[in-house]
């Protein structure tokens, strides 16, 4: 090893700067790297495509602002997909911070597709109780959510007149950042009421849910930004997730490079230490 410079003692801030550059550069100058669609995303897309026109689907939004970069594109794309197929959307949240985040996506997209609140979509807002709320929805959604996010009683909302429980919901899209989230929906709702359930989760949580795909409990899974970008690709409207995937790929390549470099340096230094001993 050359004297004066030892890569093992490199300042970690040097790595931070490289990671920052690897994120910023592709955002400013998109590389348009190719992207494949993975089977769990394709399954989810196909399942929504198979829902008959005019059916009611549920968006279960259980996330907060800290996970918006990964999960908001999923919510937006699902709403776009559902509106484009003339599906009606019922939004229900188990996280108190979720309803305004969904509103951010619902408002502009409803305007774009000419959808009317109360007839084509409804935001039931947040309900405390976690898994108890899920069980309550299995018996009666209007009794569990007596009013919508704005405080209007659900019996005054035309769309909700058609909804009693999960039997009236053709597909549930659960977008989850933690607990209560996808696991609770699988355990308490899918297994008891046999709803068709798809999920979008943060990348951190995604590996925990792949067994549910194999067992058929989940009908498709969007895992992190990559899953969101693949879904955007299928729906045909590239958004924030797609634009972030170039940066994601470049940073991953950089991290792999550092892992390989670190291992090479480790083995070289171990051999030279053995020799000197």
């Amino acid at each position, binding site marked *: 090893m050359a004297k004066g410079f030892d890569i093992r003692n490199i300042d970690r801030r040097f790595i931070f700067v490289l990671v920052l550059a690897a994120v910023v550069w592709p*955002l400013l100058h998109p590389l348009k790297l190719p992207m494949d669609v993975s089977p769990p995303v394709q399954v989810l897309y196909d399942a929504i495509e198979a829902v008959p026109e005019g059916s009611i689907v549920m968006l279960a939004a259980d996330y907060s602002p800290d996970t918006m970069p990964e999960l908001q594109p999923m919510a937006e794309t699902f709403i776009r997909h559902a509106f484009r197929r003339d599906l009606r959307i019922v939004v229900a949240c188990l996280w108190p911070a979720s309803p305004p985040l969904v509103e951010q996506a619902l408002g502009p997209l409803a305007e774009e597709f000419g959808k009317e609140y109360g007839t084509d979509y409804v935001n039931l807002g947040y309900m405390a109780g976690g898994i108890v709320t899920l069980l309550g929805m299995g018996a009666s959604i209007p009794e569990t959510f007596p009013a919508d996010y704005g405080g209007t009683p659900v019996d005054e909302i035309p769309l909700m007149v058609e909804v009693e429980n999960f039997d009236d919901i053709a597909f549930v899209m659960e977008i989850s950042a933690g607990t209560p989230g996808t696991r609770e929906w699988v355990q308490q709702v899918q297994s*008891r009421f046999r709803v068709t359930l798809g999920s979008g989760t943060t990348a951190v949580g995604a590996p925990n849910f792949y067994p549910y795909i194999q067992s058929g409990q989940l009908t498709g899974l969007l895992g992190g*930004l990559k899953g969101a970008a693949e879904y955007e690709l299928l729906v045909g409207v590239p958004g924030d997730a797609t634009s972030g995937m170039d940066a994601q790929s470049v940073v991953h390549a950089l991290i792999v490079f550092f892992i390989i470099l670190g291992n090479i340096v480790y083995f070289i230094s171990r051999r030279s230490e053995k020799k000197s001993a």
Partner: protein
Amino acid sequence: MSWLHMLFNGPPGTPPSVVWGYWVAAILTICIYSFLYKDNPFYKFAESLFVGVGAAYWLALLYHETLVPKLITPLFPGESGDPVQWIRIFPGILAIFMLLRFFPKVSWLSRWSLGFIVGMYSAVNITGFAQGDLVAQIHATMNMSLNSGGPLAIILNAIAIIGIFATLIYFFFSKEHKGVLGGVAKLGIWFLMVAFGASFGYTVMGRISLLIGRMQFMLGDWLHLLD
């Protein structure tokens, strides 16, 4: 429209409050990231502000989204004409019991609330886990075919079955891990390491995604440098 004009006024039609909101968010983001260089007063300020605002936000949110609609309004419906829901007194009492932890003489009452929560959630969760996880996953494993679905599916199913078996053997502690049992347990460790590696990879992707989201905000919403 010049870039500087966009920076301070936003795209046409943007309310000034939104533009200044972007500025506050951007400056606080820079303060937080400055910790990567080294600890400094700007980071401390942003951290303290975040903790304070976060606590206040959640308190207000829980008050308006939970306490008011679930307890106060049902007990005091006022002029709405709705009947008083007296049953809500019981969860209200349990909630007050939780707060009694701060008073040593009566803090034991909080155990009643905790006991109720633990008992109720255990009952609901155990049945949900048994039905949704345990039985369903065992059923899915038993259904894995080793003679249909094509060569790739057969190989993948075989790997999954061997992996499940070896990993379960690793967690079998009633016999010392020696001989064949030790070999299978070691194979189980390899499968666990692969699972942890995949999980770590996803975690890296998740953390980088958050950085990308922040940079999209900084370069797009704030600096207007993205298309």
